[in-house]
């Protein structure tokens, strides 16, 4: 499955949950498919979507919080997986779109073709960990994780194939902050 197809499956499953998006094509795919006020789009600060999502989840325990991350981001901030597992917020779902490359900079290889990120998450102590490779599996896996106490981890293996014509997030960073804060109250 292509990354775009993963987003086409995943995004319609999101209801009113705050979603923190990693930088790069993760933001752009999600923005292009469906822009939402409760979407926090990162335009830089690679590696920090996971810690931002953890902060939101800890301070909003009554809301399910979703992180949409990439393999390069997770590898950069592997220690944050330990922080998530140690704090163990029940309301956190960490989704990783794993294409095994740094696609937005020219598809240089990452390490996730050799290192299984879902195994890293499992061994740090995430409660439920699932890995899917077919788009037909995404819905059931995501809904199962959404209904189970977290922190939960969903790894979606995809092929590279991001369309560079996909638009960039058009909101200013300040607008992203303001609307996200208003949306999650």
């Amino acid at each position: 499955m292509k990354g775009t197809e993963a987003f086409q499956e995943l995004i319609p499953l999101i209801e009113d949950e705050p979603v923190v998006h990693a930088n790069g094509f993760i933001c752009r795919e999600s923005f292009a498919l469906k822009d939402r006020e409760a979407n926090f789009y990162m335009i830089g600060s690679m590696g920090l979507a996971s810690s931002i999502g953890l902060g939101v989840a800890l301070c909003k325990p009554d809301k399910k919080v979703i992180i949409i991350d990439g393999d390069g981001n997770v590898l950069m901030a592997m220690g944050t997986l330990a922080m998530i597992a140690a704090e163990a917020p029940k309301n956190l779902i960490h989704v990783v779109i794993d294409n095994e490359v740094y696609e937005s900079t020219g598809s240089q290889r990452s390490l996730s073709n050799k290192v299984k990120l879902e195994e890293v998450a499992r061994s740090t102590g995430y409660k439920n960990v699932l890995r899917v490779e077919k788009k037909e599996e995404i819905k059931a896996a995501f809904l199962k994780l959404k209904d189970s106490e977290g922190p939960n981890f969903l790894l979606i293996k995809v092929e590279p194939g991001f369309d560079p014509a996909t638009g960039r997030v058009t909101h200013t960073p300040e607008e992203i902050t303001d609307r996200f804060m208003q949306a999650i109250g």
Partner: protein
Amino acid sequence: MVVSVISKIGKGLNVSSLTSQSFIERLIQEDYKFFTGVPCSLLSGLIYELEDQNQNQKEEIRYIPSVREDAAVGLCVGAYLAGTMPVLLMQNSGLGYCLNAFTSLNLIYKIPALVIMSWRGKAGKDAPEHIIMGDIDQELLKTAGMEYSILSEENCEEVLKKAKQKICEEKLPYTLIVEKGLFDERH
């Protein structure tokens, strides 16, 4: 203790009144409720007090150990977005790790935090690994356009007010630099 701290505010804190405990209680009073960071011995008394608050659940505050200073910045950003005022505690050695997060996240998204940064390597008197950062940390903050104050017993109230104004009105991080000896060290 909270009552006694409040009673001192009007008069200004005197030399003997600024302790790890009184400072943490003062921060809580200022509505800072989310604390995270990477430890430094110069901040060990403060972190001990935070863990104590955690255990006793005196207030709805928490201290989350972070594995890296930039992850602590991320955590603070998440807390702020969720409506809780965050504090980041770190050694100045962590400033290098944080600069990208400050410049590509906090400063452009207008997401504030109170940063409490210890000053290792002051005046070239410290272990070798601290000397260069001890010399340039304030220049780095200035270059990034991040305001700071060197915290002292005398200026505590004044700089907390300044920090609050920067954070609440301009939505920018504000750094308090902590020198050795300002707070007790607990090992």
